[in-house]
């Protein structure tokens, strides 16, 4: 029997707000434990939540970009479970009436475009962070410490319809969503850092069957690469279990990145009754049409629209264009350089090549870049005019990236300008011809490949500063 795979994803995105979801504490990542806390986010008796308007704005912005309907009235609800990282022992989330519903996002896999439905977009607060001593989990730990800095930070949950049909589609969907969130400046979408999290629901059914099979939920997927791996492994398990005539049990399973397999939790541990009910301390979110329209105006060009434009108007390859739209900073940088220099392909090549390599090596992101678009444009212009060779330009670029100095300063400081002066180069060439009579003989006897040897020698002597075109002409003249 042939089976098809059904996948739906729940994506949690940390919102880039200044303050937390329901209090004015800072929403900064990486501060000293328990420094960004207050009576509200530590659940002191008597406190009340107040909804962060910016968080609503960012969620509406996302929902609009995902073609959702913004609900005229949505309601927060309390989700109850006891855990020490949850100070109130309930999480304020949304349940029956979410902020936005019924949207979609377009993805392209193996040349095929598909619309993936978005069931809902809603807002909630994050829990704190536990550190256990003596064991991996709280059970068995000698002691457990809790950091409430993350408690109450704003999260947006985006739930897809069960429209994804392969692990690869799931991975691409998440990538598209991540790049959308980044371009909207809603979330930095770094899975490794946990600012974007993904839970996957997966099931299989015989092709042609309308009813869904029993699903499992895969958790602990901590990187973009892990999405596909985790789902391939779980898909395989579903097929094997089914073909052996066994039944899939509905449960939550944890993905282990080392073994690339999933393991089940005892279902009893996850038999939660969250006892949702409407949060009585908050009033419904009822965004006015004017506000929604105001937010819509801030969306601008979406990444996939931008990619199309880069391909058709700026003649980038699809692969390069994709990299240019991965986040807003890269695209903005690229377009700024193009505006100043006018040659998109050249600018893109430098960004995709050396700049990306540098960032990867330094583990930095684009917005930490010391280089400005004007500086890259300046370097590119110097290549055009022959002031810098490609190799020199690279050196200059790295100096600017590392030191943050001005281009001119770097060039003057290291004496890096290209030598195009014929008399200066002729002097060097004569010296080299004098010192290498053997190679001169070889050239004269017809071994023209030896020319490269002379070019190399001159470059070495001038520390790469010789203008290649001038050098070539001069060398040929001198050797004949």
């Amino acid at each position, binding site marked *: 029997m042939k089976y098809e795979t059904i996948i739906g994803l729940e994506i949690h995105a940390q919102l880039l707000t200044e303050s937390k979801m329901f209090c004015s504490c800072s929403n900064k990542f990486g501060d000293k434990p328990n420094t960004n806390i207050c*009576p509200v986010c*530590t*659940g*002191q*008796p*008597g*406190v*009340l*939540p*107040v*909804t962060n308007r910016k968080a609503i704005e960012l969620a509406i912005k996302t929902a609009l970009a995902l073609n959702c309907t913004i609900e005229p009235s949505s309601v927060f609800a*309390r989700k*109850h479970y*006891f855990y*020490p990282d949850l*100070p*109130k*022992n*309930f999480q304020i989330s949304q349940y029956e009436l979410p902020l936005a519903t019924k949207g979609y996002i377009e993805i392209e896999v193996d040349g095929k475009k598909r619309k993936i439905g978005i069931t809902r977009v809603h807002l909630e607060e994050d829990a704190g962070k536990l550190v256990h001593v003596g064991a991996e989990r*709280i*059970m068995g730990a000698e002691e457990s410490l*809790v950091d409430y800095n993350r408690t109450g930070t704003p999260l947006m949950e985006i739930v897809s319809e069960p429209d994804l049909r392969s692990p690869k589609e799931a991975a691409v969907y998440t990538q598209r969503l991540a790049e959308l969130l980044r371009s909207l400046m809603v979330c930095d979408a770094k899975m490794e850092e946990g600012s974007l999290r993904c839970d996957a629901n997966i099931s299989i059914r015989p092709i042609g069957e309308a009813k869904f099979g029993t699903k499992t939920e895969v958790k602990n997927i901590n990187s973009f690469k892990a999405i596909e791996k985790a789902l391939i492994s779980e898909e395989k398990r579903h097929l094997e279990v089914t073909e052996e005539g066994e039944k899939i049990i509905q449960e939550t399973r944890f993905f282990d990145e080392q073994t690339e397999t999933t393991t089940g939790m005892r279902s009893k541990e996850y038999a939660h*009754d969250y*006892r*949702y*009910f409407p949060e*009585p*301390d*908050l*009033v419904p979110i009822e965004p006015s049409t004017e506000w929604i329209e105001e937010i819509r105006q801030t969306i601008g060009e979406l990444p996939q629209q931008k990619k199309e434009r880069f391909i058709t108007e700026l003649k980038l390859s699809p692969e390069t264009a994709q990299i240019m739209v991965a986040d807003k900073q890269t695209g903005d940088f690229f377009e700024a350089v193009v505006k100043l220099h006018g040659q998109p392909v050249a600018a893109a090549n430098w960004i995709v090549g050396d700049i990306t390599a540098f960032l990867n090596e330094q583990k930095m992101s684009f917005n930490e870049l010391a280089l400005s678009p004007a500086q890259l444009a300046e370097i590119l212009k110097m290549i055009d005019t022959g002031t810098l060779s490609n190799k020199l330009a690279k050196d200059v670029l790295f100096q600017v990236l590392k030191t943050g100095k001005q281009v001119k300063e770097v060039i003057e400081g290291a004496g890096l300008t290209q030598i195009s002066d014929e008399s200066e180069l002729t002097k060097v060439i004569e010296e080299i011809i004098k010192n290498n009579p053997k190679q001169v003989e070889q050239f004269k006897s017809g071994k023209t490949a030896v020319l490269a040897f002379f070019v190399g020698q001159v470059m070495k002597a001038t520390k790469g500063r010789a203008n290649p075109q001038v050098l070539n002409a001069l060398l040929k003249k001198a050797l004949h």
Partner: protein
Amino acid sequence: MNNKTAHELHTLLTERKLSATELTEAAFARIEKVEDKVKAFVTLTKDEALKQARAADEQFKSGKNITPLTGIPIAVKDNMCTRGTLTTCSSKILANYLPPYDATVVTKLKAAGAVIIGKTNLDEFAMGSSTENSAFHPTRNPWDVKTVPGGSSGGSAAAVAASETILATGSDTGGSIRQPASFCGVVGLKPTYGRVSRYGLVAFASSLDQIGPLTKDVTDAAIMMNLLAGHDPKDSTSVDLPVPDYRQALVGDVKNVRIGVIKELMGAGIEPEVKDAIKAAVNKLAELGAKITEVSLPSFEYAVATYYLIAPAEASSNLARYDGVKFGLRTKGDKDLITMYSNTRQEGFGPEVKRRIMLGTYALSAGYYDAYYLKALKVRTVIKRDFEKAFKDCDVLLSPTAPTVAFKLGAKTADPLAMYLSDIATIPVNLAGLPALSLPCGFAGNLPIGLQVIGQAFKEDALFRVSFAYEQNTEWHKKTAAL
């Protein structure tokens, strides 16, 4: 001077015939004398109070920043957070809890120069109608120390009635200000839901809780409301409406005011002496020119059942945070998390609190939610509509505040249902979010009877108008408990 009202004392203070320090010392002298019998307080804050009193005296000296509450002693119910001063909710689980912040009402009182003399006893987490559910000690009714003061704001009501304080704050979820006001012969107002900030009030049932004043007369209640009412950005459910000067409503006239007497609260289950006192009060108001009609609110019979689903459901959620992790009680020697949770809560909560947590947890559980919680919300809407209908022809509604006068200590502790029924007249008002005021209107033997005046949302001024006119033409509020 402890028998005087805040507005009377304000005159003496501004005329410098009395200092705030003398007044505060007098309050503590009175406490010294009668507190053993009444047991109204959980915590007394004498040093801090005298400091506040001296600051008030400085203000009177300079003539600057004087408010009607400057230098007036006030007791705060112990479920309102006071920074650095124990806030226990009369519960073992919070017996050691020092809040890191002030409730908005406390901030307002301090800013107005009021002198906070201590924190008053209550039924644990405000769950009860007799203050016998306090984990520390029951409070007694100053009119007869063998009877209860009502609850849950029994400590505040008793402290005012015993003249241990001039003013007090209470909170009212199903009658917790009005019923003790009735039992103790003082004035108590539950404002419209959203009129007073709940920030810093330890939540019992968030959609029902409101803070309000307990005072010796209607004028003092209006003065306190002038301060307490208003929007608070820290409480999303507080309403951003202008606050009128409630003293403007104290005109002493009820001509052509349309008053409806609630039929369902004048029948079976109401003690005859209570009924008679209410009838007499209605006659008095008619005499003063009010237009009296009888109104029927048929959904009232479902109010108590509805309340005992909604309030416990919210309570079960609000009280989940008391788990031994962050503050309050944590039992010692527990080997794992679940044991710590269950032992802490087992030891920390009293029986009534546990009963309501279990009721509420059950009502919210999967499979029961629709039948209980959701159904209760629907009935709540029906009750609201009944009130709206009644208010088409009436400006205010009248009823007894409680079906009985104060009962003996221990009389109802074994029968929770009988206890719940003592809030039969007050609960519908909370469900509808309306304002209501209880004021003294007679006695059964030595025990006070309370008249409840119910108004439309955000029309507290109508309550003050009717209550003040009645008070001006009767002598009940002048009687004091002989301790």
